[in-house]
């Protein structure tokens, strides 16, 4: 029999419903896997006692016929989500020791639906990064390695802990957040499925804010169907987030396996970026073939303002971050460093608490919002953002149902390989993903092939606003053709 932690979330749900095993047994299997995988550094906090207590309650509800949609399924939570009574730090020293007295809306909905919490998962500090190397808890190691090579690789970022844990079978699924690609890029690096829903689909209440007009929560999973199950529980209107939309949440699982015959899939020529590797080009073509074979129609499209997306993002995101992170001043939470007066106390506290990448982004954000520069940078970027969104509106108006692109410009890289370079080099990781956040659209990353040295590669499908169902249908078509991407060599547990 397959080890319980190797089942997909969908299979585990079935096994629990059939009484083949209990949630306590399933949870114990994950807790053991977590213990054996500490070298990956995916978890910032493990909550085994809480997990077993939640599992026992889930078993009681299953026995009495009151099972919720996620009853008894063990999940991990990115450290950006406030979890009541469990340390939440955004992997920053400035929030060291912060224990929220409240629960984020998204995670509260997971527990409402019966899920079991295994612990908190690491991310880049304040979700600013593409490799999870800027976490105050140290870098997360990907369970994946290049063929015949033991070089430790990054799991991507910022949701690298979530991606590593799901791919290494340390949880049945996990939450992530995505501001510029932080779900889709790590999903692609680890052979997992990740979806960033439409802006407004999930409540941001209780999620530590990075760039409020771009941030969205979404799930990581080992299959498209698993991701559909998780998103249904995470999504929904919340009066506590004025940007969350009041729309019915569909049963996304119903869309998985629906025929994609006749769907029009756009291939944007501007995504064929300079220096893109041959294997990424081939993966993209194979992805188009997979969807064509499933009955979709492939059409060439143009998104003319794509090249402006990254510079726009690196104005808008730091500007919003500099405002959001103003609250970390050593007064209400976190660490305080004493100073000769209150300003000195603020400055010393923030200098000690924020890491270099966060400090960089706060500085850039403060600069572009400062008197005399606001119009030239921030306002200009928001105007360009209108054009980027209009590009998408135009192709959707021409009858395109979804857009197919690579998820990342390369496979996973080694720990330390990019972190010492020019910061802009790391920013280029987001070249295919940031457009989606700037336009507020939904997009899914699905594993679809391997690099020459045996690392998973992902494809991204971008949908119309609030048409996540189309993405699940198309994602399943890719999964049907390409299969799933379980990591084979469990070197970390040897």
């Amino acid at each position, binding site marked *: 029999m397959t080890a319980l932690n190797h089942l997909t979330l969908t299979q585990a749900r079935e096994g629990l419903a059939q009484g083949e095993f209990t949630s306590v047994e399933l949870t114990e299997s994950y807790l053991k896997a977590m213990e054996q995988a500490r070298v990956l550094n995916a978890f910032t906090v493990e909550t085994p006692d809480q997990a077993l207590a939640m599992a026992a309650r889930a078993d009681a509800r299953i026995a009495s016929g009151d099972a919720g949609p996620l009853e008894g399924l063990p999940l991990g939570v990115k450290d950006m989500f406030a979890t009541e009574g469990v340390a939440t730090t955004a992997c920053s020293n400035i929030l060291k020791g*912060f*224990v929220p*007295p409240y629960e984020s809306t998204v995670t509260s909905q997971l527990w409402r639906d019966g899920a079991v919490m295994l612990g908190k998962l690491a991310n880049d500090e304040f979700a600013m990064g593409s490799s999870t190397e800027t976490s105050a808890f140290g870098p997360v190691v990907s369970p994946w390695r290049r063929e015949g090579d033991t070089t430790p690789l990054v799991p991507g970022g910022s949701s690298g802990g979530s991606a590593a844990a799901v791919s290494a079978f340390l949880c049945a699924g996990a939450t992530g957040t995505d501001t510029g690609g932080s779900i889709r890029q790590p999903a692609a690096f680890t052979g997992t499925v990740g979806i960033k829903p*439409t*802006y*407004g689909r999930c409540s941001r209440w209780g999620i530590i804010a990075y760039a409020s*007009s771009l941030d969205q929560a979404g799930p990581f999973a080992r299959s498209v169907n698993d991701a559909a199950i998780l998103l249904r529980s995470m999504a929904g209107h919340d*009066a506590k987030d*004025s*940007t969350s*939309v009041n729309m019915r949440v569909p049963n996304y699982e119903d869309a998985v396996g629906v025929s994609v015959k006749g769907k029009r899939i756009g291939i944007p020529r501007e995504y064929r970026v300079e220096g893109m590797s041959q294997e990424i080009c081939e993966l993209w073509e194979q992805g188009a073939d997979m969807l064509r074979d499933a009955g979709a129609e492939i059409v060439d499209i143009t998104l003319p*303002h794509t090249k*402006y997306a*990254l*510079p*726009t993002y*690196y*104005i808008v995101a730091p500007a919003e971050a500099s405002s959001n992170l*103003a609250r970390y*001043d*050593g*007064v*209400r*939470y*976190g660490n*305080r460093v*004493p100073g000769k*007066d*209150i*300003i*000195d*106390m*603020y*400055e010393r506290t*923030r*200098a000690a608490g*924020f890491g270099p990448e966060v*400090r*960089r982004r706060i*500085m*850039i954000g*403060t*600069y572009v919002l*400062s008197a005399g520069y606001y119009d030239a940078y921030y*306002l*200009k*970027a928001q*105007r*360009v*953002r*209108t*054009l980027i*969104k209009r590009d998408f509106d135009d192709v959707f108006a021409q009858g395109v149902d979804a857009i197919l692109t690579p998820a990342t410009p390369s496979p996973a890289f080694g720990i330390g390989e990019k972190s010492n370079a020019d*910061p*802009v080099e790391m*920013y280029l990781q987001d070249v295919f993903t940031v457009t989606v956040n*700037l*336009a*507020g659209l939904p997009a899914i990353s699905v594993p679809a092939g391997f690099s020459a040295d045996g690392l998973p590669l992902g494809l991204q499908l971008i949908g119309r*606003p609030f048409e996540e169902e189309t993405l699940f249908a198309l994602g399943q078509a890719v999964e049907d053709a390409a299969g799933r991407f379980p990591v084979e060599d469990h070197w970390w547990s040897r």
Partner: protein
Amino acid sequence: MSVDLGTVRRVAHLARLAVSEEELPALQGELNAILAFVEQLSAIDVSSIEPMTSVVPLTLPLREDEVTDGHYPDKVLANAPEAESGFFTVPKVVE
């Protein structure tokens, strides 16, 4: 556009970040690299384009102006580095 050391010092102060004189040149280099990168936007004329305010068509909801939450000062203060008699405390501000 590029920033000089004085601007880096001023922005650090605006951002309430203590930066030592030794750290300034490296920070200046990083900021200028990012500013050079975003400079690409100068190639495009957007003066006639409305700036983005919301990616989804949304009217901000209104609700009754009433207290719907609160009455738990202990929870609010539980994470404070320093608190006293139901208040956050800070270094003396008024002489």
